[in-house]
């Protein structure tokens, strides 16, 4: 910290971090806000994970053991909502805050006060949402997809609070994305042309546009729910001339791009880590950018593949099947490029690289099941079973979440100034890797054998794989405490990190000291430091 003060004092008289709690409440510093987002995300990850363990405990054996079906439904709903909106999305926003200004050579985010506000909305939104569980009638119990009319006419009274919480989260997301776009478009250092931007910056730019496009749709659909519940409208009520399927179209028009919102920044992270530890430039940078843009475009025209069983016309089914299958092409290009980057590199396998490699393998497995799910007639069998649960957890846990962990290990020395404990990091990786596969791989079998999702109890032929899955769940869950320990240990000290940290690391963030001073790039970096990726 003393080094930080010396540097800032030389430039300015008052711009060190403030002391105490007000530092965090009033901060407009992108690094502070990034850290706030990341800690918030980790807290939500543990809370959502605890809910998941309640689910896995109940499903350990057939029969009702610990909780009632009504509470089970609240657990599945809250687990989904918290993981999507509380854990994965804020983690990426936190990484964006920390890294985008450092990567493009900007002094801070373009709109620092709005940045503060978009973070501080979140704790309030989630307090409201979690508090619904203590209200009369319980919290949301209709799944994170909250299909009407289960979520309107038949919903518990607390749904109104849930709607308000979603509005607040949406406002936070939209402000965060405006900030990312404004920063990337306006604050790149001289010489940082678009096609020299690190892929993390590119993927976030595209993600931010997706967010701005679809968050208002989510806000619209929950507002329609609010009107159906309180103001006598019948948007989704068939008895009043409304259309329950309309809800699903609107929800998935938001929901499918949302899926890519949670994975595109992960592509960016992996595209940074693999070249570093392969000591070789990323293969096919241009095609990576175009593939990301194609995936983002396609994400807007595939939403109804979540709804193959609602009874769409044949032409609709065929269109959404073909469009969905197309996504495999740009996604395949990305995977091939990562493999080509590793090919004939000189690889080492530190913790971030292990997580990145696991990402490539396991995310691709989620991609394979994604292509299978696109085949409409086969989807009639897979839809709403554990096969789908396995599919999206493979994409989101060893996909998005592993990339976030990879990022945490990769940039932690830059954030704290110390190297993390590599042995513990690797232990964390291997336990997580084994746990996550024990947890989710058997769910493919469960789904194919006919187990529907979102049920608190199941027929006896599903017993074996369910207990394996539960054992994996507890292993994975408790392994995350190692990550917490490693991060705290790294903040408190350790081997001093160099400025570059990793032998093969490229990019502007590695040219500033470790830990990164409170203010960086107050003057633009030397254009000679900016290389093609």
């Amino acid at each position, binding site marked *: 910290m003393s080094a930080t003060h010396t540097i800032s004092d030389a430039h300015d008289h008052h711009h060190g971090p403030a002391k105490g709690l007000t530092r965090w409440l009033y901060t407009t510093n992108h690094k502070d806000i990034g850290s706030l987002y990341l800690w918030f995300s980790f807290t939500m990850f543990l809370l959502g994970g605890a809910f998941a363990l309640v689910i896995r405990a109940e499903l350990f054996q057939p029969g009702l053991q610990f909780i009632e079906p009504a509470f089970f439904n609240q657990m599945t709903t809250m687990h989904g909502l918290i993981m999507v909106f509380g854990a994965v999305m804020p983690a990426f926003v936190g990484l964006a805050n920390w890294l985008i200004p450092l990567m493009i050579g900007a002094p801070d985010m373009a709109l620092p006060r709005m940045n503060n506000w978009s973070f501080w909305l979140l704790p309030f939104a989630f307090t409201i949402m979690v508090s619904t569980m203590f209200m009369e009638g319980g919290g949301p119990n209709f799944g994170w997809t909250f299909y009407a009319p289960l979520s309107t006419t038949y919903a518990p009274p607390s749904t109104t609070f849930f709607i308000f919480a979603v509005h607040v989260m949406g406002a936070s997301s939209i402000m965060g994305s405006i900030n990312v776009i404004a920063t990337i478009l306006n604050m790149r250092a001289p010489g940082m042309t678009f096609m020299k931007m690190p892929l993390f910056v590119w993927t976030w730019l595209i993600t931010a546009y997706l967010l701005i496009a679809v968050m208002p749709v989510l806000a619209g659909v929950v507002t329609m729910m609010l009107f159906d519940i309180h103001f006598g409208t019948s948007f989704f009520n068939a008895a009043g001339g409304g259309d329950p399927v309309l809800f699903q179209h609107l929800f998935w028009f938001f929901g499918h791009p949302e899926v890519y919102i949670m994975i595109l920044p992960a592509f960016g992270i992996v595209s940074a880590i693999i070249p570093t530890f392969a000591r070789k430039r990323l293969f096919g*940078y241009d095609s990576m950018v175009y593939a990301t843009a194609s995936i983002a475009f396609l994400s807007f025209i595939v939403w109804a593949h979540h709804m193959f069983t609602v009874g769409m016309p044949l032409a609709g089914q065929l269109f959404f099947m073909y469009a969905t299958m197309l996504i495999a092409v740009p996604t395949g290009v990305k995977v091939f490029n990562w493999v080509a980057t590793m090919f*004939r590199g000189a690889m080492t396998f530190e913790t971030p690289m292990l997580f990145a490699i696991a990402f490539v393998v396991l995310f691709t497995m989620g991609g394979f099941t994604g292509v299978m799910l696109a085949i409409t007639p*086969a989807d009639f*069998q897979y*839809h709403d079973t554990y096969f789908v649960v396995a599919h999206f957890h493979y994409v989101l846990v060893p996909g998005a979440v592993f990339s976030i962990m990879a990022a945490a290990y990769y940039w932690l020395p830059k954030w704290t100034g110390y190297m993390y404990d590599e042995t513990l990091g690797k232990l964390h990786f291997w336990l997580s890797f084994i746990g996550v596969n024990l947890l989710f791989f058997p769910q493919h079998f469960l789904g194919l*054998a006919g187990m529907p999702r979102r049920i608190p109890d199941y027929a006896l032929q599903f017993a074996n794989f369910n207990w394996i899955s539960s054992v994996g769940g507890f292993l994975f869950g408790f392994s995350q405490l190692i990550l917490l320990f490693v991060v705290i240990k790294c903040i408190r000290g350790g081997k001093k990190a160099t400025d570059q940290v990793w032998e093969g690391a490229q990019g502007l963030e590695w040219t500033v000291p470790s830990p990164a001073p409170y203010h960086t790039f107050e003057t633009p970096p030397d254009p000679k430091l900016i290389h093609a990726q």
Partner: protein
Amino acid sequence: MLSKAKLWLSLALSTLLFWSAGLHAAWDLNMPRGVTQMSRDTYDLHMTIFWWCVAIGVVVFGAMFWSIINHRKSKGVQPATFHESTKVEIIWTIIPFLILIAMAIPATRVLTAAYDASESELDVQIIGYQWRWEYRYMRENMDEEEVSFFSVLSTSREEINNGIEKGENYLLEVDRPLVIPTETKVRFLMTSADVIHAWWVPDFAIKKDTIPGFINETWVIVEEPGIYRGQCAELCGMEHGFMPIEVHALAPADYQAWYAEQQAGIRQVRELAAAEMSMEDAMAQGETIYNRNCVACHQPGGVGMPPVFPALAGSVKATGDVAVTMDTLVNGVPGTAMAAYGRQLNPIELASIITYVRNSFGNNTGDVVQPADVNAYIEGGQ
């Protein structure tokens, strides 16, 4: 380390438990091939795309692990410097595209066939309710009695709550299964009375949402007589996990016999409903019906789960004017999970459940409601 020790302990314990209890220990890995042309086509599509994925996986992960083994710094290799090749990018864009076209063609064919519900020989309406199914057979001529009935989970609460050993078809058994003839094109017309459900029988490769205000159609030609089981697939509230589907496919002649039996049964109930019921009969039958239809929400002892599911013990509606009790049961409470049972249960069943509710859980009205009263109420324009 404690968590690890616990893990091994739980592994060992659960292994022991599952082998010693002699449970129906299935390790089903794959989708059933099923008993219809549609289900076999679906299975073939599933296996084709699966093997494509395996093949691509072997190539891609093979290349990756080969690099991981051979191109590591500890082996003293120097990294290459190549970082782009338009030719390679085009190749690995086009090859997946061609594979996808190869998959899309059979998928389109199967899907198109699935949509042809024309020329059905029997139409059955399937209506989803929280949390049961109604099956209604479309009559060929209006002189026939309309065969329609509700199909409710028959697994006992004791099994679910681990009070007694679970039966072989735990959670996949119902009181009255859907009966259809084999070798006959049966069309299902699906809708819902409340929230969205999904009717799914894996052996038929049919999964279709039942949506309030919409009628979805699908069809099946079952080739093998047998019992086929499925479950509701769309989250539909608290008891979503407890509304199974059981289909009995009978040879056409057996089906005709069954259908005739149903006709006779309906006439018989109509006659019985005219007879007087004793308190004991009503209470005994009422308890059975309560445990099948009501207990999920109103709970054992009628305590309910306020505020969503009100208590029956001491409730004004259950103990006050009998017409109010009857109205609540027959017409349901719109906008809540309380369904209209007027059509779900026959007058004898309705009368006994009303008597039961009014004389149980500490309620003590002492009156015995007769099937004739219920009939009069329903026919009197309610």
